[in-house]
Every structure is written in C-alpha cells, then in structure tokens.
C-alpha cells in the first residue's frame, strides 16, 4: 500500500513537473502502425513511414511538440473522442460517415485508387466474389455496397493472409499498400480494375478542437505550396502528387 501511495505521489509529481516544463503543450498523434507505406513500426520498434515524416514536418511548421502513439484501428476514433490522443494520422480517408463524428483537415494525399489483390493469373468479378477488407474502412463499406461477400479482418496483415489461404478471392485496399505485395510476391497480383474511393487522406481531430485542427490545416497548406509534400508523396510512393 505504502509503495502504491509513493508510486502515485511520484506520478503526480512528475506529471506536474512535466506540465511546468513544457507549457506550450505536447500534441499526441495517434496512428495504427500497421499500414505501410503510410505508417508502420520499423526494426527499432518506432513509428515510421510517409505519415511519420509528414506528421513530424507538420508539427515543426506548426511549432508544436508531437508524440507518436499507436492504437488499434478498431478503436482509433473512440480513443480520439475520449481524449487519449489529440489527432488521428493513420491513412484515414475523409468520408461523410466519419465527418459526423470527427473533423478532418484538408487531404494530404490525393484520393488513392483502391485495388483488388488476388492470386496471380486469376481474374474476378468483384460483385460476385468473396472479398476481404479491413473492418471499418471505406473499402469494407464499398464491398458491402456492391453486394459482394465481405470478409472483415481487424488488421491489414490478416486480409492478405485470407487471400493466401484461399479464404477470400481478393482483398480490396489502398493501392499503395497493396503494390509492395504484388511486386514482391510471385503468387499475388492485381485481379480487377482499380476504383476510386473517398476524398483523400486527412488528419482527424475532435470536433471541439477546431483551433488545433486549423494549425495543422495551415501547415498542410504550406507543405502543399512549397512542394515538400509532393516530394514525400513521391518518396513513399503513395499515389498522385498535388
């Protein structure tokens, strides 16, 4: 008990010290860490990828101290809304459904085509096939809409696994996520026409956090204007430039 009390006291003390030290505020950026090239954990176990570089640059321009936090995709919006972190930067496409719950900045990627990845040498008709998608994504919503059989998985890795196992005919996901798999695995290839979904990827904020959102929105605008965003888009190969 005594140890517990001491621990709590130490926690409270450090918390107040931390507040005194950096009153300008730390912005916590929530990401999934499992969706290369947008965001993933590198060999050192740190968040890396296109969004890591964009996010760090945006924070520098907005003169904010930022910290990266990983969270499961399923609960990424509830945890933002309840205040566990301050922004979502996780390859999240801007959609009307999401706009009802959170607010987005302007998009920092062009609407990226979504592709069907299946076994090489096959061709499918999406409407009559079994399609895997990550739960809670625009791709999953699209599959449900066209009336195909939808298999939902909690993380991106499992959707690819479902195709390899033959459980699904194809997986529908962002083209930039699937391209490395198609290129590096002989057995996987694109099996149907690409489709355009969503309004590009933006950062998500709480609806009550308009001020912070405006700061990031301005920073994205300035990155678009001086071309540094385009350079990162090309470097990480995440679709068309602006």
């Amino acid at each position: 008990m005594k140890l517990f009390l001491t621990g709590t006291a130490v926690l409270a003390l450090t918390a107040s010290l931390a507040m005194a030290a950096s009153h300008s505020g730390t912005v916590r950026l929530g990401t999934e860490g499992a969706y290369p090239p947008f965001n993933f954990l590198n060999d050192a176990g740190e968040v890396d990828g296109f969004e890591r570089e964009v996010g760090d640059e945006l924070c520098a321009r907005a003169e904010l101290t930022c910290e990266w936090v990983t969270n499961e995709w399923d609960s990424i919006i509830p945890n933002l809304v309840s205040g566990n972190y301050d922004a979502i930067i996780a390859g999240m496409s801007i959609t009307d459904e999401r706009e009802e719950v959170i607010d987005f900045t302007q998009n920092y990627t062009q609407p990226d085509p979504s592709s069907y990845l299946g076994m090489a040498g096959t061709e499918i008709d999406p409407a009559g096939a079994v399609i895997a998608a990550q739960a809670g994504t625009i791709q999953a919503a699209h599959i449900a809409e066209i009336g195909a059989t939808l298999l939902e998985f909690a993380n991106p890795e499992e959707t690819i696994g479902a195709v390899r196992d033959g459980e699904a005919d194809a997986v529908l996901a962002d083209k930039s996520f699937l391209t490395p798999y198609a290129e590096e695995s002989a057995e996987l290839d694109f099996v149907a026409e690409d489709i355009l979904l969503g309004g590009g990827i933006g950062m998500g904020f709480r609806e009550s956090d308009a001020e912070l959102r405006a700061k990031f929105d301005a920073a994205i605008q300035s990155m678009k204007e001086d071309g540094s965003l385009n350079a990162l888009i090309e470097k990480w190969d995440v679709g068309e430039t602006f």
Partner: protein
Amino acid sequence: MGLPARPLRRRAAIFSYCAEPELLEGARWLACYLTTGKHMAFYASFGTVLLLLAITAPVALAFGFLGAMSARSHIFPINWLGRTYIAIVRGVPDIAFFLFFVIALDQGFEWLRHQALCPGWDQPIRQGNDFVVCDAAKLPLGTAPQWVHETYGFLLAVLTFAIVFGAFAANVLFGAMRAVPRAQIETAEAYGMSRRQSFWRILVPQMWVYALPGLSNLWMVLIKATPLLFLLGVEDIVYWARELGGTKTPRFTDYPHGDWRMWYFLALLVFYLGFTKVSEVVLGRVMQRLTFGQATAGGEAQRKAAA
C-alpha cells in the same frame, strides 16, 4: 515504381556485424534479427505481463476478500453491495467490461478532477461525441511524457483486472468460508469468542484450503487473459508476436520474411505452458502447506503418513 534507397537509420546494435543486414546469412542473420529494437520491445513485454500478474493477483485477492466479507455481512447495505458486485461483474462479458468500463472509469476520474480544478469552466463536458474537460483535469496531463501515459494505462489495466477477477475470487472465498465445518465455529463460540474473533481466528485460517482449488483456477485463467491488455493500449506479448510475425517486405525492413506468425505463437505457447507448469508446482506446494493440520481428508492423510 519502388522507393529510392532510403537512408536507413542504423542503431548501435549488440553485435558489430549487424551493421550490414543485407549481407548476413544463417545464424548471424538470426542473431541480428532477434536483437532488433522491435524484438527488444517484444522481450520487454514479457516483463510487462509478469509484472501485471504479480500486481494484479494480490490486489484481486484483496478485492475478493472484501467482496466475500461484505457478502457475508449482516448489515444490509454492505451485504447488498457485496452481492451486487459479485453478481454484476461475473455476469458482464470480460471484453465489454474492458472496452466500456475502463473508458468510463477514466472519464469518471477526469470528471472529478474537472469539478475540483476548473470551477470557472462554462462549456458543457459532453459536446456531441466528445468528452471535453479542461486541460488541467486531463489524466494524465496532455503534456506528460509518454511513459506517464503508459504507466497510467497499465495501472488502469491492473485495476480493471483486479475488479473483474476480484468478483470471481469473492465468490470462491464466499464458498470457502461456508465450507469450513460449522462445528469449528460452534466450538469457537462455546469458548466465548465474539463473531469477529471467530471469523479472524478460526474461519479465515481454515478456509484457504477450501479456496485454493478455485483460486488456482482463477490464476490460470488470469495468466491467459493478458491479451485483453491491448484493448487498453498496453502492448502485450500477443500484440508483439502478431506484429513481428506478420509478413515483412524488403521495402520497409532490413530483415524481410514471410508470414512467421506461427513461429511466434509457438514461442508464446511454450511460454504459457512453461508458466502453467511452474504455477502448478508452486500451487501444489502451497496446497500441501495449507492442508497441514486441517480437519480435511488431505490433512488426515498427511497425519497418517507422518505417524
């Protein structure tokens, strides 16, 4: 297509030859692969899980003891409180408990701090979907370093596990207290002990032998319930096994490999089985100690063996 060569951030590695992972083969490749920062986080998460168990088990036992005591109480509100606690927590599915209760608990703490620290606040706390408290009431503070957030999440996890498993432990202990032969209590009363005295001196020392089989079951379930930690944002061994085992393409790592999740989960299997074995041995010894001198069949057998 394909990325231009990205300057890979190289870190001080344990083995000097890890500087050029592309050139490695066989055992050296494996040695370097298994000592990446990511793997270190995986190994550390075993410590997290063990620490969680080490803290949760006694706290849950304390919750259980309090629950059982209040369920036996003759004072109505306390009795009612104990029984409600046991019934509700045992009835709600763990996953629902972990998803909703923890967020509610966290928001409850923040609401209390908000009332205490920000009396001048004029905006509503609930704004649509958002839960908005003043910055000073945030738990932990938005400015706190990451480890404070992690420690806070860990403590929330301990508390939630303790509440859930405490309810089951309360039921086990409640049953164990009733299993102590009535004659023991009657004898204590005949000696003139008060209710309190007979509870602490006669009932409690004797009940453990009846409680242990049920408690050891709970312990085993608790060991395997730790993946629920990830729902609370604590990265446990199952999270890392899934993350590390997933297919890695050469573009994003120095150590590309296929789907190795099976091997990682196999390692977890070995860990869990080993841990279960150790638990069984220890619990077996504890049972022997508790049985000693008790008026049970086990105690009788020990007495005969010694004679």
